[in-house]
């Protein structure tokens, strides 16, 4: 080999060759005898059966412990707790670079109030070297920032075209509230009554409720099935902005005729997670009737959509859910067989 033409990949192959040989040798050291393994497995089997007996005991408790459990649960539900709740968005639009007359300021504030759906818009003026800069502040009572974001974008584009310098900001307003565990849980539950409503009305109500609960890109489709019943499909996204931030998706409860229960519902939850080392994992959780399964695929971005679907399908199958899985443009479709 000519040293002047060394290719790092070829040299890495040499290293891989030698490392594989060492790895092979190390893993062949001290292979236990089959009889030894059999003894260990039989011990393990006994321990496992003991655990199964304990579980059986737990599954059939006596009435007194049951009452005690209920009492404790009751107490826990009413123990006061504090939790953070996003109550809306603080919106700010700063204008500078040109003087605006009073009528124009008033018109802008009115338009902003109407577009954002906020109760009021405050205007603050700050004197500077040239024309005073103006700040329009408003509060939007929506947990999702999507709508306010769109409105601010539209204002920014229109005002920039008119020669103004525009700066916008959008901050969620978080309040620490005191309540009990039941109140905290209720925060995450969306209840929608479907009685006597058309598919379009239900679609619209679910979409609004999901957006208010802080979910973005909400797509809802409600269709009446020819064989009876309704199919409700909901797709919503939410991106964590802080490392380790837990995203709690709201729980949807449809009440009225044709109640949605776990027995006739398929839930598919897909999350992309990045760990501290920067490794991305795709986690797909599927709940179909009384069965649930999770598939985890590392480095999904390096795989084709068909390979990804095949891996998720295989993992779901191993976990007891036989389903057709497809990925199209990053979106997953799971159809149990």
């Amino acid at each position, binding site marked *: 080999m000519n040293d002047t033409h060394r290719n790092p990949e070829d040299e890495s192959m*040499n290293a891989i060759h030698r490392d594989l040989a060492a790895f092979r040798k190390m893993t062949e050291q001290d292979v236990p005898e089959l009889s030894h393994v059999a003894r260990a497995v039989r011990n393990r089997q006994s321990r496992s059966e003991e655990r199964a007996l304990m579980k059986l005991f737990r599954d059939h408790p006596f009435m007194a412990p049951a009452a005690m459990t209920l009492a404790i649960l009751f107490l826990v539900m009413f123990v006061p707790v504090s939790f953070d709740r996003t109550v809306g968005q603080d919106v700010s639009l700063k204008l500078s670079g040109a003087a605006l007359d009073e009528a124009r300021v008033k018109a802008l504030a009115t338009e902003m109030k109407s577009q954002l759906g906020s109760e009021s818009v405050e205007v603050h003026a700050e004197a500077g070297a040239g024309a005073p800069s103006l700040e329009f502040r408003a509060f939007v009572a929506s947990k999702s920032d999507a709508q306010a974001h769109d409105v601010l974008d539209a204002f920014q584009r229109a005002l920039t075209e008119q020669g103004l310098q525009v700066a916008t900001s959008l901050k969620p307003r978080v309040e620490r509230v005191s309540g009990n565990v039941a109140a905290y849980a209720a925060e995450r539950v969306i209840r929608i009554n479907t009685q006597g409503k058309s598919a379009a009305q239900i679609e619209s109500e679910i979409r609004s409720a999901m957006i208010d609960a802080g979910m973005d890109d909400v797509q809802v489709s409600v269709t009446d099935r020819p064989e009876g019943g309704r199919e409700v499909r909901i797709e919503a996204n939410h991106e964590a902005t802080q490392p380790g931030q837990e995203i709690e998706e709201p729980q949807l409860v449809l009440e009225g005729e044709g109640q949605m229960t776990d027995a006739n519902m398929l839930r598919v939850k897909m999350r992309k997670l990045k760990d501290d080392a920067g490794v991305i994992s795709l986690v797909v959780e599927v709940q179909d009737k009384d069965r649930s399964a999770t598939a985890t695929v590392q480095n999904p971005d390096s795989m084709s959509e068909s390979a990804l679907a095949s891996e998720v399908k295989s993992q779901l199958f191993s976990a007891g859910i036989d389903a057709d899985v497809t990925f199209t443009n990053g979106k997953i479709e799971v159809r149990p067989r």
Partner: protein
Amino acid sequence: MNDRPEADRWSHLLALLDPVHRQAVTTARRLASSSDEGDDLYQESVLHAFRKLDTLRDDSKFRSWFFAILISKHRTRTRRAFWRRFLPLEDAASAEREPAMDPGFGEDEWMRSRRMSQALLALNPGERTALVLHEMQGFTTEEIAGMQGVTPSTVRSRLTRGREKLSKYYVRRGWVDDAAAGSRANLAAVHLEGSR
């Protein structure tokens, strides 16, 4: 249904395991993050095989049946290992202890083995399993496809991607081998004799 007496089923399972025992232990160790972890994976697979033995219709298919169990158990463990990353630091440290240096190995050989183990763990589970089974255990792509529940072309893709990633992993860390310069080894040619 487990109609046969337990002792009979154990004897039957051990007779079937005997010819594949060594290969299965080494496979488990190569898939796992350490030999201890691999031995534990093997035991878990044997226990599962014992419980499901009556579902094996044809003894001549035992080898692929048992390896499919081993791979499935490994995949379940990999998923568990993923969640371990969210444990507090001290728990995570105890979950994956660095193995001590084996006195039977030279420092260089031990280090080489460790870094291969580390590099394999950086691959996704499907690629790692395909590489270990094909490159180190000598299984064909068709056999691996049957065990992983995918098509042979998927296995071939996993092998290609796995080899590329392994090579890039080594290059990124500067793990090139001056001592072996001259032999333009190709991982595909590094078909180490499996212990079949």
